[in-house]
């Protein structure tokens, strides 16, 4: 009961934050909404007993990544006039319809009976939710055994990103 209440609370927060990110015209507000969205997402992780992931979510995204985002936005310091007029174009309407249609289909299938309550998806999920799920040990074992290749590849990706950023930010060649 309490869990359900908390879930809907957090889910509403995530959706509100996420939609504000898209809809807000001032990027600072967008970024702050994203921070809020991440916090509520961390709450959902906690409800799923993934405590470590929840903390990492707050530490890395809300704490570090978003601060750097806000940092850049603050330095740009866009004025209201620079954001341009609010316009409704044909493609925005099309996009809105597409978003609503997708959301409707997903909601209908996810809430309806067609969503898999049996079958391979459930079996795989049960396999994942082993003993000590969400703890440091379980996450560590997953990272270094089942997901060792993507985990190590991520370090390559970060290195490439750093080198790429340096190349782009360097003076003209």
């Amino acid at each position: 009961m309490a869990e359900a209440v908390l879930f809907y609370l957090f889910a509403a927060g995530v959706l509100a934050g996420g939609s504000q990110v898209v809809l807000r015209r001032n990027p600072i507000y967008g970024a702050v909404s994203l921070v809020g969205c991440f916090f509520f997402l961390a709450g959902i992780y906690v409800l799923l007993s993934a405590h470590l992931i929840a903390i990492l979510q707050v530490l890395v995204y809300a704490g570090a990544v978003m601060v750097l985002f806000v940092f850049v936005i603050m330095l740009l310091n866009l004025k209201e006039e620079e954001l341009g007029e609010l316009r409704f174009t044909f493609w925005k309407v099309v996009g809105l319809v597409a978003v609503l249609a997708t959301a409707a289909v997903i909601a209908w299938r996810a809430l309806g009976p067609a969503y898999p309550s049996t079958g391979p998806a459930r079996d795989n999920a049960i396999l994942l939710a082993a003993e000590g799920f969400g703890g440091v040990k379980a996450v560590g074992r997953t990272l270094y055994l089942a997901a060792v290749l993507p985990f190590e590849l991520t370090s390559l990706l970060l290195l490439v990103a750093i080198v790429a950023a340096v190349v782009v930010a360097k003076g003209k060649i």
Partner: protein
Amino acid sequence: MNFNPGDLYGVLPALLLAAGALVLLTSEVFLRPVEPDRRYQAWVAAAFAFAGLWASLAQLGDPAQPLFAGAAVSDGFAHIVAAVVCAALFLSCIVAFSYLESLRATRGEFYALALFSASGMCLLAQATDLVVIFISLEVMSLAVYALCAYLRRGKRPAEAAFKYFILGSFASAIFLYGAAFAFGASGSTRLADLAATVRSGSATTLVYASAALLAAGFAFKVAAVPFHMWVPDVYDGAPAPVTGFMAAGVKAAAFATLVRILVSGYGEGGRWRGLIVALAYLTMLVGNLLAVPQRSVKRMLAYSSIAHAGYLLVAVAAMGTSAPRADAAGALLFYLASYGATVIGAFAVVAIIERKLALSGLGDDLSSWAGLSEKHPALAAAMSLFMISLAGVPPTAGFMAKLTVFRSAIEADLVPLAIFGVITSVAGLYYYLRVVVYVYMVPEAKADAVQGGRLLSAGLAIAGCALIVLWMGVLPGSFAALAQSGAAVFGR
């Protein structure tokens, strides 16, 4: 489940390439601070590319086996793609050497990024897990974005890189969304588990949605219509050696992954075939049509790259039915290799022309090609050969490649698609031959289009490409056998 160090041998080409990149980045530290001599970098990069080529060919005979608990696979298909990527990198490094040295623009990061992206491409071809696919895709893409922005003289390169980055990130996001759906449907990111879910017939909405989104994400990377908008600007704005590498390498890796996802992940139903057929029709039509009015050879080659993505999609569509699947995969591999050799050669010639223009920040125009044959008959002949090969005229690699692709399409009962492909490639003759006409028949109007210096290495690379193009066209046997041995994993 345990970490098996032997699995590292399976990803040896990618490891070699990444190690090469690290060697190059580290070597920058030891250069003397004033007027450092960076000429060694191209050759170090080429050596590592060659090592990667050797490693992937050496592993070709090994039996297919899963690596890292099923996150990747070491099989013939992946090895052939890795070989194509490494060969493309090898040739591109030599082309880039002459291009960058003549523009005094060599930096260690250039070759390091090229090696990193090739490493990502090799892993992409091996990945059988959506997370691994995504990360390798980003390793490849981030490096290529930066390479496009490498030589920022004039506005076009920055514009190209920015467009590529924004749209590429968008495509990655679409791919991720599809991967999330696939995970929702199957409870796992492994393609094998996804295939089991597809077989079991549960969660169909999520499965279809994920298939469409994943295909859309990769349609962007392979430059299929309607996800092709970025191609002309990016191909035009990037340095010509990078464009050649991008056209050959990114395409090979992206097609390999697309095939892997569709066949290994969604293969049993084969319902995705309709989607790919539609994409193929559109891509062949739009690519060829829009190439016709182009005045810039680089832009024309960009649209031609879109058109070729269409022909490659024909081969992918042919893999939708089980009977000729291995044949179609072999045709795909052969096509990728032949297109790679041709397009790198073509962009190597473009690079020589572009050198002079790059300093002024202008794009190339057909008029700068006029009368090339008078002063540089060898360059003119090579360019004509590459154009003929792209058009698909015998006795070149392009012809054999198209032939095998259309044959496999007919085997797969896709006769209208094959006929449409033949018609569009005949239409393509017009704009390819126009370059040849300019090179040989229009009298030279301006000063020499080629600025001297360091032509030997570029010439070597062009000669190498021309040799491969002719070899694959005249004696395709050994290449076709290699492609078939790689495609054997799809024969069931």
